[in-house]
């Protein structure tokens, strides 16, 4: 079996998955920070 070729696909899949997870989690973090900052300004 051609392992190198298979590992490329596996790494591609995990790259996509973990990059997406990091982006999604960061988007929550960014929105939380932004909302807190706005609340700080309002009061």
């Amino acid at each position, binding site marked *: 079996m051609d392992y190198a070729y298979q590992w490329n696909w596996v790494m591609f*899949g*995990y790259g996509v998955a973990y990059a*997406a997870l990091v982006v999604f*989690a960061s988007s929550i973090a960014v929105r*939380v920070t932004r*909302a*807190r900052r706005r609340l700080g300004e309002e009061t």
Partner: protein
Amino acid sequence: MATLVQKKSPVWPWIVMAIAGLVTFVAAMTVPPDAVQGQLSRIMYVHVPSAWLAYLSFGVTMIASGIYLWKRDLEWDRRAHASAEIGVFFTGLAIALGMIWGKSTWGTWWTWDARLTLTAIMFFVYLGYLALRRTTDDMDARAKRAAVMGILAIVQIPLVHFSVIWWQTLHQPPSIIKPEGPDMDTVMVLTLLTAVASFTVMYIAMMVKRVELARLEDAVLIAEQTNTGPAAGEAVVAPDLSGGA
């Protein structure tokens, strides 16, 4: 409003998410490869948990919507919203990983497999749910409409599911070998269960943060609606009464 904003933003969910992600990764990379699929079977350890979380999230959205309609407590509406957003994310991820897997295993990005079609439809249904939530700033109206949609979406899922399955089975018999067949190795089953469990923990941590965000967004909305402030601010200047002299 004081109840909406916690003094300190909890940090532990981030740590939990990172650990859960790491556990899944290590488990998926150390498990022996599948006899038929080879290394490609490793994609399954993120694909299956993502798909599981998609269903779990939408289930939670439906339950939270129902409790909201019963109790009329906006906290449940926020939970429904948070879960739907996480669900849309994992549905998208499950589809993307399924496509990568499909391309690598049988050489095509998309097959009109019943489950794949259903997942794609589900993705758009909940995208519509999220879009619906953006149409009004009236929190109670938004919560009621979203709750009806959250329940309607789930009621329709079995119908879509069966219609798609019948549509497929009457024409082309399933020609794809399902990798998660019954004859899976025990180590692989355990790894898969580990991955599903850690993704579920990740979901809980994400929910904590996302619900916190929903509370903050509502607090911002309330602050904007009650704090009227100047209508045009700097743009308004006192009329010049000097007659241009």
